[in-house]
């Protein structure tokens, strides 16, 4: 819980990882390129005081994770969203055994989501069944830009993916976190295209599709899809650290999200260990949309409470103390919100 100015915030970090990017786990140059790319994100967007050394960044371990999230970071509950990256790392990037054991030891604080890859075919369906039982899955993380043999990307609309979503439905895995990276195949199309989300969200209305980093770098396409699909959510991973270096850009991201999808479908994520939650939460609670951006209404404390934890708590049925709850927004399920603020650029 985070408290400021007499207000208490229940915090759910909806996207964290326990990764191992150390050289001994790297299979090839791409393993190094991947963790280096993350480290550049980290260095570029973090306040100077929060920048880690490269060695610290390669691997954190469970103890450090618990400290960064729960001792120092105000987080009440966090959800693992592991990436496999089996072509880059010998034991994978997300550390399944270590993370799931940590979640089992701290069930009140941690939820372990696993992944599937539709290119694993029939065998992968059996594996998903086994994983659901082993981890008690409520959610999965899908990284569509993962490499897999000859293939360097897949789409949620691939025929085999539908079989996986049907199985998710059967197994009670209702939260599908989608990380759109630069998929390669087919190379002819926009690599970050989010259109496949539109199709599956329509076909599987009983599943929730949480699009990580709110579709960036295709915020516009994401917003247009999400406004029409009530089961599509925006994860703030990678978007929220802009609050420090580029607060006006972050204000515009928040303004667009609030306008197109509203306050109940946005989820806070630190993307740990890309960034740590402490400074992000502190800055977000203090954050306000600049007054000269008159096309957006100001963010209210209730809206911030929803984004920081209550929305994710709802998706994962996490118990929230009654005193920390806020009333529902009574918003439209689809279409733009706060029409009174939709005044183009007029003051």
């Amino acid at each position, binding site marked *: 819980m985070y408290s400021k100015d007499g207000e208490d915030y229940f915090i759910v970090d909806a996207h964290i990882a326990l990764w191992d990017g150390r050289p001994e786990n790297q299979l090839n140059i791409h393993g190094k390129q991947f963790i280096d790319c993350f480290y550049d994100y980290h260095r*570029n967007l973090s306040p100077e005081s929060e920048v880690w050394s490269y060695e610290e960044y390669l691997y954190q371990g469970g103890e450090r994770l618990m400290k960064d999230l729960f001792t120092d970071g105000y987080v009440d509950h966090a959800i693992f969203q592991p990436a496999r990256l089996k072509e880059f790392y010998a034991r994978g990037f997300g550390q399944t055994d270590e993370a799931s054991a940590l979640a089992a030891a701290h069930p009140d604080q941690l939820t372990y989501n696993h992944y599937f890859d539709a290119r694993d075919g029939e065998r992968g369906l059996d594996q998903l069944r086994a994983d659901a039982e082993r981890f008690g899955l409520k959610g999965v993380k899908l990284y569509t830009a993962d490499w897999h043999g000859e293939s360097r990307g897949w789409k949620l609309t691939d025929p085999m993916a539908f079989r996986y979503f049907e199985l998710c439905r059967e197994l009670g895995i209702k939260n599908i976190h989608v990380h759109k990276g630069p998929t390669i195949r087919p190379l002819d199309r926009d690599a970050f295209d989010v259109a496949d989300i539109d199709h599956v969200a329509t076909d599987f209305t009983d599943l929730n599709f949480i699009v990580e980093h709110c579709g960036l770098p295709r*915020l516009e396409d994401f917003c247009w899809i999400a406004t029409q699909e009530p089961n599509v959510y925006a994860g703030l991973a990678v978007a929220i650290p802009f609050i420090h270096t580029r607060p006006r850009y972050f204000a*515009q991201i928040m303004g667009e999200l609030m306008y197109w999808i509203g306050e109940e479908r946005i989820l806070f994520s630190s993307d740990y260990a890309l960034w740590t939650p402490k400074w992000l939460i502190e800055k977000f609670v203090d954050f306000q949309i600049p007054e000269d951006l008159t096309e957006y209404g100001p963010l209210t404390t209730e809206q911030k409470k929803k984004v920081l934890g209550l929305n994710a708590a709802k998706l994962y049925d996490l118990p929230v103390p009654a005193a920390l709850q806020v009333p529902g927004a009574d918003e439209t399920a689809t279409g733009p919100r706060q029409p009174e603020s939709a005044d183009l650029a007029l003051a």
Partner: protein
Amino acid sequence: MTAVLSEVLDEAAVRRALGTVVDPELDEPITDLGFVRSVTVHGGAVEVHLRLPTSFCAPNFAWLMVSDAREAVAALPGVARLVVELDDHSDSELINRGLAADAGYRGTFGHEAEESLDELRTTFQRKAHTAAMERAITALLRADRALSEDAVHDLVLGDLPAGAPTTEALLRRRSVLGLPVDAAAAVLVHDDGTRPGRAESAMRLRRARSVRISMDGNAHFCRGLLQTRYPGSDADQVPRAEDRSLLPLLVPSKGPTS
């Protein structure tokens, strides 16, 4: 004679040619973005190295930029030997081999390529136009707070301030797409150039705004990441053009502004 001068093959001429190559996602020249790492010219031998903000920048866009760069430099008079390479990318080897062998897009990427990248290019030319349209209209709205939604729907190109950077930028992007550029042409249009209905116009502008914010944000992030990845590369970046300085995104520096 200026004609002779401009035909001298030197680093400046090569950089000028590279200045015609645009990052399709960001709608900015690769020379302004700092993506040109080095240019060396020895007689008729030219070697150009490009760099990108991450190892995993989308390979299709990477290919578009390096192949456009190669084409632009190859067209210069006096180029006898030309090497254009993309450094430090997850697909550097593949792309550089394909370029050297003049294998083309399909020859380079094999089964991962289908037809061509023309449609992809067009998608982003449309986004660039949409963003430029939003910048031009929002500049008007901010200058004249009394402008109504109806007035936005009715705007024609002749209503935009002639010669203003936002107007010029819009006209250039309309030309690329083959949209009309005469004074009577509607400003607020769909991708195909048709004017939205009166009731749809506010929504069209809101969608256009999300396109502009997305492109601006990506441009700032990519520039920042390049600086982090290649210390000192900020010196090779040219500040964003005046036609898109409408909403500065950076934190104002704390020190005295110069």
